[in-house]
């Protein structure tokens, strides 16, 4: 039996957004996105859990130095923190700022820093809904 080990670190950021699909008319958007379509936007305190899987380095006892995961996380999250996602983050000019899209954006960005060690991310939009993306081997 081979034991698997992963390390997860939890980060927070706060951002505003508005769900609105330009392909649909205002009425359709209001019906589909409801409160999330509010004209002037609204915001959330997002919580992001980043999970790294890998071998424990026999010397340091660590899967990854915490500085490495912190550096990756902050490089990716800081540009979103206290921003309006749709207005201030380029990616969300062409993608809707739903949890599903944000989690994919974060995954791609984090992968630039963490590569294949990135195993799973979990994004909490509120205390009651979260989105997960996990590497399947």
């Amino acid at each position, binding site marked *: *039996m*081979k*034991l*698997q*080990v992963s*390390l997860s*670190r*939890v980060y927070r950021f706060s951002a505003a957004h508005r769900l609105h699909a330009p392909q649909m008319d205002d009425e359709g958007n209001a019906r589909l996105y409801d409160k999330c379509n509010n004209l002037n936007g609204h915001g959330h305190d997002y919580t992001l859990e980043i999970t790294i899987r890998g071998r424990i380095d026999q010397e340091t*006892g660590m899967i990854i130095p915490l500085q490495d995961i912190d550096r990756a996380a902050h490089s990716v999250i800081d540009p979103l923190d206290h921003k309006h996602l749709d207005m201030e983050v380029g990616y969300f000019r062409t993608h809707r700022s739903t949890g599903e899209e944000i989690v994919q954006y974060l995954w791609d960005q984090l992968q630039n820093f963490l590569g294949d060690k990135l195993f799973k991310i979990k994004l909490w939009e509120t205390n009651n809904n979260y989105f997960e993306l996990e590497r399947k081997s």
Partner: protein
Amino acid sequence: MKQVTISKKFEFSASHRYWKPDWSDEKNKQVFGLCTSPYGHGHNYELHVTVSGTVDPVTGMIINLSTLKEIVNKIIERFDHKFLNLDTPYFKDRVPTTENIALVLFELIDERLSKRENIKLQKIRLYERHDLYVDVWRGES
């Protein structure tokens, strides 16, 4: 195929120090940062233990939670309010990182649970703090 699991949460408080005696002070500080602090520092750890197995048709349980509590508490006693580097035998040759503590706990709990029929330690999650946790689970093979 479906699988039912039961999980229980435990807490213990302990201190530790990240330190490799064969490294220079500078290297220890560079790699481990604040965690090399000479007299150690501590955390309130939170341990989630997840057990899988067959649900007994009579009792409706995989394992009696009281039994699980007794088994895990016996193990945690060795860690609770201890300086892990010196007061436990597990970290003489390895740094008491969250990864290593979780591995040791998995092995100790697994050793006790594997003596029982029809149950298996599935996974543990060890929180060092609310923003850092390690999972240990069985691989596919």
